């Protein structure tokens, strides 16, 4: 009995201790954001801020120039929501087509879609930039948002897999009751794939919230900056060594990610375990 208890205890010490070690940098970032900038690296060995200040947050929140951090958060929220709507509409339509409809060329287009999954963004990055420049879309959200309305291979694949698990008898019953194909999609399938749509939404949120390359390429004026670009700006101004404010805003940028995770944890874990979405 005692040996068993000891074994259990050492398990928790090893597994728990390693988890703490792994997350220590994040605690350090959090606690440093409450320290006076000049002291952050002098007292780097201590987690406890002395004195404990919150002025870093006020200072970081002012942003730079005429734009407060609130503007960047609002810009990012608009960006996320527009991409999210695009993914939900387009991916569910496309996935329904692939999973449920018989038409000439279905296998061909499905194979093409799987291939685009593997395509590095770098290959299309430059021509896309030129196309969007020709359309006069530079320095706007359009190049970042419009493609989302034409589907995303990861989520299409996820939804196709999910729809395939729904019994076809439901579709057939609906057709007998007088539904047309669109009715089957909107009344039968759509309500049943809500869990997969939740996974799609959560990962769309993460990837869009974190996106740096897109905004760096397409957004030039600070009034349009996203949170990740604003943090990048903080870093470029690091010469003033205002680490406190930079750390504080880094923490602020992580808060929505944590909130979404803790609310929808189940979908996140299932999304990764079952489909291998990278988080």
């Amino acid at each position, binding site marked *: 009995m005692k040996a068993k208890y000891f074994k*259990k205890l050492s*398990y*928790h010490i090893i*597994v728990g201790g390693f*988890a703490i070690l*792994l*997350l220590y*940098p*994040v605690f*350090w970032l959090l606690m440093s954001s409450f320290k006076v900038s000049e002291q952050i*690296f002098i007292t*780097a*060995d201590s987690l406890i801020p002395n004195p404990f200040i919150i002025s870093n947050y006020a200072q970081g929140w002012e942003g730079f120039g005429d734009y407060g951090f609130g503007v960047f958060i609002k810009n990012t929220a608009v960006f996320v929501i527009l991409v999210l709507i695009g993914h939900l509409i387009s991916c569910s339509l*496309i996935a*329904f*087509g*692939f999973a449920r*409809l018989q*038409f*000439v060329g*279905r296998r061909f*287009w499905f194979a*093409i*879609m799987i291939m*685009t999954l593997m*395509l*590095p*963004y*770098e*290959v*299309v990055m*430059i*021509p*896309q930039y*030129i*196309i969007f*420049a020709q359309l006069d879309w530079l320095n706007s959200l359009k190049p970042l948002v419009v493609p989302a309305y*034409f*589907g995303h291979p990861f989520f299409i694949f996820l939804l196709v897999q999910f729809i395939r698990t729904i019994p076809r008898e439901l579709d057939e019953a609906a057709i007998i009751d007088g539904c047309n194909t*669109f009715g089957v999609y909107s009344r039968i399938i759509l309500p049943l794939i809500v869990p997969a749509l939740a996974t799609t939404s959560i990962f769309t949120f993460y990837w869009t*919230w*974190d996106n*740096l390359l897109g905004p760096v390429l397409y957004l030039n004026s600070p009034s349009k900056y996203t949170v*990740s670009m604003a943090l990048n700006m*903080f*870093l470029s101004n690091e010469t003033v060594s205002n*680490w406190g404010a930079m*750390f504080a805003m*880094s*923490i602020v*940028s*992580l808060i929505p990610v*944590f909130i979404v*995770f803790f609310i929808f944890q189940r979908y996140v874990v299932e999304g*990764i*375990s079952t489909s*291998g*979405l*990278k*988080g």
Partner: protein
Amino acid sequence: MQSHMKQNLWGYFFIGPFIIGFLSFTIIPIFASLYFSFTSYNLFNAPQWIGLDNFRKMFTEDPRYIHSLKITFVYVFVGVPLRLGFALIVAMLLNTASRAVGLYRTLYYLPSLIGGSVAVAIMWRNIFGDEGIVNLALMSMGIDPVRWFGDPGAALWMLIFLSVWQFGSSMLIFLAGLKSIPQSYYEAASVDGASFFQKFFTITIPMLSPVILFNAIMQTIAAFMTFVPAFIISKGTGGPLDGTLLYSLYLFKQGFEFFHMGYASAMAWVMLIIIAILTSLIFLSSKYWVHYESEGGR
């Protein structure tokens, strides 16, 4: 016949958005990029056809390119196996009936959750600073502090550590795979007196091999395209001494800093070819080590 036609129309109605998007945002850019890769193009003047010159220059006249390719290979082939190894070890540790597993799983996943963000790259940059906590920890263990931003080799390791730190999502996939291995296999092996390592190599690894294959491919592709950490940690320079100039970062700089759009497009195509070769090599090797249950063995 009519209903056949109707079915096709419905099909293309639903997947239509994909086809339109694919043609305009993927296929046209792919061919444009292929064309640009044979040209000298700075975005402001018309592209000038120079044949294979970009590719020749890359491998014969641009030591920075060769260097960038080399460190990217190191980053991928050291980082991905370490990451997957960690993921597997932790997944096995968590594959128990303990009630705390849910909590641990969440804690180990958190680095993956936030790992792609600029905030974490900023954090990484600061914990590896000369007076950062990593050096403090090294000193407390009696090891000399490392100048992570002074030595290009050390700087690359800083990026590799960041990638390994985010083993959580692979761990979740492994954990799901481990849970699907029937417990009776292990019990039977125990009855036959198999040791832990025998069970690991004859049950766990073969049963998990399809998942390992999937992870290896996805992680290799993603690692090859790593951009944000290198960009943030080096403040966009790829320094020190190009120590963090990963392929994507160098491509970005060639394209959008020096406006060598033709050269950058050629780089993107070489990248595509390398990724295709790597993926097919992993696939080809898979028939020697991946075990599919439904086929009744190898």
